């Protein structure tokens, strides 16, 4: 930040206090994750006795093998991959071409169409009419319903459009000289030039799909279609409160807590794997979204 760090004594103290306080913040941010990780790898007996604070006590992986035995866990894991992959592809299919069209000032009715899309950021019919509409469309308990009904939103289109608008007109003009049409210009010129924005939108979609649970919980009826988050909700919120389940695990070295911990860890791992990439683009994405409107 400063070209010539010329610090007095009080400046150095300030710097040190600041660094220590930030360390405290960082520890607070990461501790819950470490705690759950440690719980998942401890023996149920140590967790129940309240001996786990930071590191695993009596290292024990039986909770994981118990989770891996559950067929529903794998089904929901596979379902989440399905919804994430197809949902994201569907989103890009809707978002990119329409954002390109809206970025062209020569488009007749551009303002009107832009308003038609942006209006939904300020006003939507709400939960019940949305649900009844989905029901009328026959998309209750439908995998493809989940994929399509949540594929698009105004924010991502505007973000993408803003980026396309920032690309110099001369690229398009040069391509047009060579006889390219709009589809070819989008595919061969704009998409290669817009990798950061496309990456941002892709990651927004992937994270939203991976983490979303509410509408899947409401709309899907059969267990074999639910995504991981709905499975997690069942296990964490419902199992944790049911007595019978805790009775059933008494005879084993895992407990309800270690099982829940193991499920949480298994669902965070993919997020942690892509996190470095995600972080890079998300910081950019926050800026892109804030450029206009």
């Amino acid at each position: 930040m400063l070209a010539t760090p010329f610090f007095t004594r009080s400046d150095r103290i300030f710097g040190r206090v600041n660094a220590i306080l930030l360390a405290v913040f960082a520890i607070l941010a990461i501790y819950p994750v470490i705690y759950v990780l440690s719980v998942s790898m401890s023996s149920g007996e140590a967790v129940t006795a309240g001996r786990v604070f930071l590191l695993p006590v009596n290292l024990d992986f039986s909770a994981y093998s118990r989770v891996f035995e559950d067929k529903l866990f794998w089904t929901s894991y596979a379902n989440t991959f399905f919804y994430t992959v197809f949902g994201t592809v569907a989103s890009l299919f809707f978002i990119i071409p329409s954002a390109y069209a809206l970025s062209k000032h020569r488009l007749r009715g551009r303002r009107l169409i832009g308003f038609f899309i942006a209006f939904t950021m300020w006003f939507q019919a709400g939960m019940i009419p949305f649900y009844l509409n989905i029901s009328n469309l026959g998309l209750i308990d439908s995998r493809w319903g989940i994929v399509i009904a949540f594929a698009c939103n105004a924010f991502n289109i505007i973000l993408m459009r803003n980026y396309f608008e920032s690309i110099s007109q001369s690229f398009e003009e040069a391509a047009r000289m060579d006889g390219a049409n709009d589809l070819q210009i989008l595919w061969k010129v704009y998409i290669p030039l817009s990798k950061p924005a496309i990456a941002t939108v892709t990651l927004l979609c992937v994270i939203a799909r991976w983490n979303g649970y509410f509408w899947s919980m409401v709309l899907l009826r059969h267990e074999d279609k639910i995504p991981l988050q709905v499975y997690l909700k069942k296990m964490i919120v419902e199992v944790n409160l049911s007595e019978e389940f805790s009775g059933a695990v008494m005879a084993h070295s895992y407990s309800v807590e270690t099982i829940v911990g193991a499920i949480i860890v298994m669902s965070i791992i993919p997020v942690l794997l892509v996190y470095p990439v995600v972080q890079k683009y998300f910081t950019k994405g926050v800026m892109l979204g804030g450029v206009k409107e």
Partner: protein
Amino acid sequence: MEEKLANMASEPAPFVMRLRGAWRGLVKDLRRDYLLYLMLLPTLVWFIVFLYMPMGGLQLAFKQYSAWKGIDGSPWVGFAHFVSLFQSDQFLRAIGNTLIISGYSILLAFPVPILLALMINEVQSQGYRKAVQTIVYLPHFISVVIVAGIVVAFLSPTTGVINNVLEIFGFDRVYFLTRPEWFRSIFIGSGIWKEAGFDSIVFLAAIMSINPALYESAQVDGASRWQMMTRITLPCIVPTIAVLLVIRLGRVLEVGFEYIILLYQPSTFQTADVISTYIYRQGLQGARYDLATAAGVFNAVVALVLVLIANRLSRRITRTGVF
């Protein structure tokens, strides 16, 4: 005089011609840009089917819903649902809870990312800075279901770490999640944990765009780092803070209900039940579609007005506030 008459007589012709010209121009443009319209088509259809068609269902707010008559065939009841909503203690409680939870979170959660951004900005070592950022942004990417799971595990009356610590210090164990007086603290606290780091990005970006010359001249004048932070950095990001605060105030009715429904239970409804969770319970769980839609309409209309006011204000701030 004669000239004027002649002009008037000849006026229709140019007008028709202009109209024809405009029509031809439109046809020409549409033909030229048909690919652009083709690209827009799927998205427009999507918006109509999934976001505009449900708006027809808003009439439910003024109807007595009957499943076999359908939305269109159900009889009108005027404002009856709104009247019963405002006579229901539960709904009034939900409005109150929404405002209280939002109010507290603006008061307590809004300043944290600003503080965090100021502190991160003061770190000299690039490596340390990167490490802190990587860690504090992380919880943003964890789903609300997992956050709720972590909260449940943390606060568990029998095995949770918080209660274990309480016991060590000789306090009684508390089943926090069943206690209405604890719900808001838990909700707002875990919300800060999840979002404060990530929300600091916007403020950091604002700090990055401050003119370095300001710091250089302050340094020449012998300002300390504390002084530079409080007299340069902070004042320079006030416009950003103001805009975000106004936007946040405009969204006062939006509370993370997807998160609340994971954490609340009947024993904590009195402090935890907000408008959107009320709609969810009445509508999706209780199948009282008409009443829940009425609550939704009330919510959406008030929210729309607030957001429009907020937009006006923030535009005024950005016009007059920046530099």
